[in-house]
């Protein structure tokens, strides 16, 4: 489909790059509220939510990876018409795939807005009290725009570079805060009902959203069969970090106090004192690093969106640059749409629901269609052709 850069097929993403792409997209603003949202239903057992919630994520990312494996070198935008239409009627395929492609693109678009808004909200309420929210959002957008100016291999390299910068501070915070942990806060191990377990799992869903960018980025994998592995590694790392953060939050604060603080992980940073008083106030340093974590989430999602549009219209890099700059304008207003913090959290909870439906539903639907059309096994012959 992509004639403009078809001659220059980019297959440069290594396994490690794909892994860091997934993990750094997942780890974002969700971590700041995760201890509160998971313990709201599961009480002491909140740390189980990311562990259980990860099951469907694995399943979903495996489906996405195998779809991409079935059509190597093609993104979701490119292989959708092939799945929905035959060679004789390419137009039909295009029209039938349009709703799914649009739903995916819109979801990426809106989650970019919500993530940048939540990030702005954190910064404004806790560190830069006099800075307007708009400035923080625009700054984040400008950074993302910088990324959108480049081709896709830059995205991989940026993520690879920022990955340790995101991972280690979070791990450090979680481990350092265990020194004022009160382990009785995590007991009894389980007391909520099975329904609560499901609801708690659902609360952790939004923090896992983001790996659907791989519908686009898996197309650039260096080897065709490293995709599922990359998804597995990336999500396992994120799961580990999430569980640790929730466990630390619950052990330090207890679930009742967690319900009362708006940014539990930030409060965790505030109460953590590094021995020796070298760094007494960690929260500013933590938020400075946090910019990187949020940037990878916002920019990756937005890049996936912009790249998707570029492929949808079958255009080149110039089109991508222009469209990314233009699309920021409505995005800015969408980001400012929720009126208050309660609204934002409600919307982000809805987004979690949508992501659940989208990430699980769309790949499953695609596979069903593939099987129904008897194309499920065609990977081998396609590979030689593509």
């Amino acid at each position, binding site marked *: 489909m992509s004639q403009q850069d078809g001659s220059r097929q980019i297959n440069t993403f290594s396994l490690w790059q794909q892994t860091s792409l997934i993990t750094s997209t997942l780890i974002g603003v969700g971590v700041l509220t995760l201890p509160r949202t998971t313990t709201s239903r599961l009480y002491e057992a909140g740390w189980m939510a990311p562990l259980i919630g990860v099951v469907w994520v694995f399943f979903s990312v495996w489906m996405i990876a195998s779809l991409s494996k079935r059509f190597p070198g093609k993104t979701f935008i490119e292989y959708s018409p092939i799945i929905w239409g035959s060679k004789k009627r390419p137009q039909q395929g295009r029209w039938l795939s349009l709703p799914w492609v649009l739903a995916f693109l819109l979801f990426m678009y809106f989650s970019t807005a919500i993530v940048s808004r939540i990030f702005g909200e954190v910064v404004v309420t806790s560190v830069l009290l006099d800075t307007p929210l708009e*400035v923080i959002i625009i700054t984040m957008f400008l950074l993302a725009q910088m990324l959108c100016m480049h081709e896709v291999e830059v995205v991989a390299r940026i993520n690879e570079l920022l990955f340790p910068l995101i991972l280690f501070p979070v791990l450090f915070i979680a481990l350092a805060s265990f020194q004022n942990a009160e382990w009785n806060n995590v007991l009894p191990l389980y007391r909520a009902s099975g329904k609560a377990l499901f609801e708690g799992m659902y609360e952790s869903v939004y923090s896992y959203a983001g790996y659907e960018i791989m519908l686009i980025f898996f197309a650039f994998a260096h080897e065709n069969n490293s995709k599922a592995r990359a998804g597995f590694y990336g999500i396992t790392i994120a799961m580990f970090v999430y569980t640790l953060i929730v466990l630390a939050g619950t052990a330090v604060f207890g679930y009742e106090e967690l319900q009362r603080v708006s940014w539990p992980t930030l409060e965790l940073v505030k109460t953590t004192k590094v021995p020796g008083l070298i760094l007494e106030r960690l929260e500013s340093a933590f938020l400075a690093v946090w910019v990187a974590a949020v940037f990878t989430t916002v920019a990756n999602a937005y890049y996936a969106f912009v790249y998707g549009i570029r492929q949808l219209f079958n255009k080149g890099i110039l089109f991508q640059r222009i469209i990314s700059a233009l699309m920021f304008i409505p995005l800015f207003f969408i980001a400012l749409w929720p009126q208050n913090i309660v609204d934002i959290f409600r919307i982000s909870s809805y987004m979690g629901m949508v992501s659940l439906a989208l990430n699980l539903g769309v790949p499953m639907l695609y596979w069903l269609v593939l099987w129904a059309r008897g194309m499920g096994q065609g990977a081998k012959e396609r590979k030689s052709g593509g």
Partner: protein
Amino acid sequence: MAKNLFRIAILVTCFALLTGCWDRRELEERTSVLAVAIDVVEGREDLYKMTVQIPIAIKIAGSSGQGGGGNSNAVKIMSVTGRTVTDAANNLQLRLNQKLFLGHTRVLAISEEVARRGIQDIMDGYRREPQIRRLMWPIIVKGEAASLLKIKPQLAQIPVVFLMDLIENGSKMGTIPDQTLGDYFVQTSNKSMEPFLNYVQASQTEVRWEGIAVFRGHKMVGAINDIQSWSLLQLRNKQRGGDVIIPLPGTKNGYVTFRPHFVKTRLDLKGQHGLASYEQHGHSATYYCELQGDIVEVTENLKMKPEEFIKKMQALIKKEMEARSSKLFTQLQKDYSSDILRLGLALRGHHYRDYWKKHDWRKDFKNFPVKAVYTIKIRRLGMEMQ
């Protein structure tokens, strides 16, 4: 060319916006408050009196030619009234040339009278204020809280620094609980325990740690003295507490001093001491506390063999410690009915189904059988062998 121009434009915009110093304020443009004291206003039930201590940088030793001469002038003390704490802070701002900054506040002194009325509405303001650090120390002052800020300790230039060192040193030695604002927040939101705060008395030139102010909900209900507080520290925090000084039996004016070094505490919730109470409750708490330490002072020669002496002293100290702890339990249960031992937390954690669900802990704590069994291990006799 146009491409380069565009790049430069973006770069310039980024440099302008990414400096991150929107609300930059130099240190000398802020009025840093080191300590806040909250009192009642005589005759006005609805008003709080807030007193703040502001260090004057230029008068602190080493900063200018004057040297550390007049330590009485190194701080400025101001008092304002207001309906709430924030109202008082706003009234204070009207009298200041620079912006009030609470980020360095280390001590929050509350008068006993205010604490006995309840400090919920004071704490709410501090919960919401992002500048307030959770590691700050709230302290209950016997009498007027402002007197704590007005002391002239002579050992430190700034009175609050003296107080901070007092607490910090005490908590390092294990004699004063390191009870921070964050701990207070956690303890008030947790349904299974009650909060406590340090209790001090201030005179003209000095301040003395008096023990612990016991709360029930947000209301102070009483205080326990230093000796009982040490027992609490041993049982609750596994900290060593202060020296144990006991009159030697059978002598006229002889004393023995035992200095604990290591504390090991284990809580048994199923033990059946006092069978009647066990049958009534089904559960009981027994603290098994092991103290290791030295004899540091014996003022009368007992004329006995060291082996015999150690045995006798161990029995003596054990008896004393158990008497102290049972006095502590009586005070907490019968007088104040406030579980600052965190017994409820352990019960909820370990006996959720068989105890916690069936009882109302706030009512039940009063009659819950609690006891402490001490094991004393004397390791050394100081530098002397007798």
